[in-house]
């Protein structure tokens, strides 16, 4: 992977692991802050349960921080991979076991984990998303592009059959999906900003 962002990530991760191993509480907080959103998303996708995913997120950090504090990591640049591995194993174990024995979570760790209220994609309501998606569809100039979104996201047709049926190429298909995603992202972020706007007298 020649992505420059990937190299930056490896360096930042290595530094965080090193600082946590050296006993810096601020590094632990920064690590948890940096990776919790992604871990929460991953666990929610795997468990399909918001409350359970919160429990597993705490357990993930409990396991990871104990290990990093004590031994560090063999490959600290792959911290994200290490954390996603723990989260996946916990989610998989949860699916296998009905009566799971929970790891005792240190309350200090729980305090470090940011809640999801800072994530606009989680705070925006389903009804608001529905309104924004409707606006997005109305703004699309071509009926064919609306058809692409409908077939892909609602009817779950695959890309090849949609392209063949509607006579579009793969590049156009990707562009429609990317733009729709970007527009919704912008709309949700704008909505979130309006919520936090305060009138100061």
């Amino acid at each position: 992977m020649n992505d420059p962002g990937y190299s930056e990530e490896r360096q930042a991760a290595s530094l965080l692991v090193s600082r946590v191993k050296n006993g810096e509480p601020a590094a632990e907080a920064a690590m948890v802050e940096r990776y919790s959103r992604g871990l929460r998303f991953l666990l929610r996708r795997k468990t399909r349960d918001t409350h359970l995913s919160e429990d597993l997120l705490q357990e993930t950090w409990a396991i990871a921080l104990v290990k990093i504090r004590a031994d560090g990591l063999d490959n600290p640049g792959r911290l994200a991979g290490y954390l996603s591995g723990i989260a996946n194993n916990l989610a998989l174990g949860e699916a296998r076991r009905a009566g799971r024995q929970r790891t005792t979570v240190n309350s200090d760790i729980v305090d470090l984990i940011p809640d999801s209220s800072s994530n606009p994609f989680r705070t925006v309501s389903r009804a608001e998303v529905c309104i924004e998606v409707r606006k997005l569809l109305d703004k699309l100039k071509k009926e064919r592009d609306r058809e692409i979104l409908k077939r892909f996201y609602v009817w779950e047709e695959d890309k090849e059959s949609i392209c063949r049926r509607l006579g579009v190429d793969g590049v156009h298909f990707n562009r429609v999906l990317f733009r729709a995603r970007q527009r919704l992202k912008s709309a949700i972020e704008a909505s979130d900003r309006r919520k936090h706007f305060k009138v100061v007298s």
Partner: protein
Amino acid sequence: MDEKYTNENMLIERYLEGALSIEEQQAFEEQFLSSGELLDQLEAAERLQQGMHDVMAVQKAHIPEKATSRVAAFMRTPHYAIAASILVLFAVGLSGALMQENARLTEINTDRVVPTEIIPLVTVRSASDSGLNTLVLGDSARQFVMMLDPGFESFSHYRATVYQLKRTGKPAMLWQVDEMLPGYEDMLALAVPSSFLEPGDYQIQLEGWQDEWPTDHGFEPIDTKSFKITK
């Protein structure tokens, strides 16, 4: 795994579908854990998918029912039930009337549909006492087909006339068929409905006609057959 690669390979959509291989999934998860921008894209795609489902569900809920559904809804109303009941009663009444009419017409036309009895008539001096050429009317209507021998001389066509013989007075002409031609075994078939006959003595006069004859020539007598009708 940059943005271009992610978009070209639809990694976001495929991840949400659960369509990535284990290796691809591990690499992708490692990437989005450390990339806020990719995570934004991922969450936006997830909400877009959910929003699309919701929009379609709402649209579907607001689509007016089709005409067929309105018809179905009308068919469930009490008004329709009452109208349907009246129609059914009318149909039953009409069917009954038609059935009676059919039975009546069947009775009237009974000779057209009754079984046929074929009788070869033989030449006898009188059918009264010989027992030959005696036809039984029976209880049900029928059609008597009497087979007549046209004789040796050939004619263009034949005419048969049935006379009822009276004890007193002249025989009464009862039935006549013209334009007859020999058929099965060169015999002439004369059909007489039983409803025309009653017990008694009858006579059939068979005549021939040649087409080259002038109209005032008249039929040539060929034979006379007697038969008796009993109950």
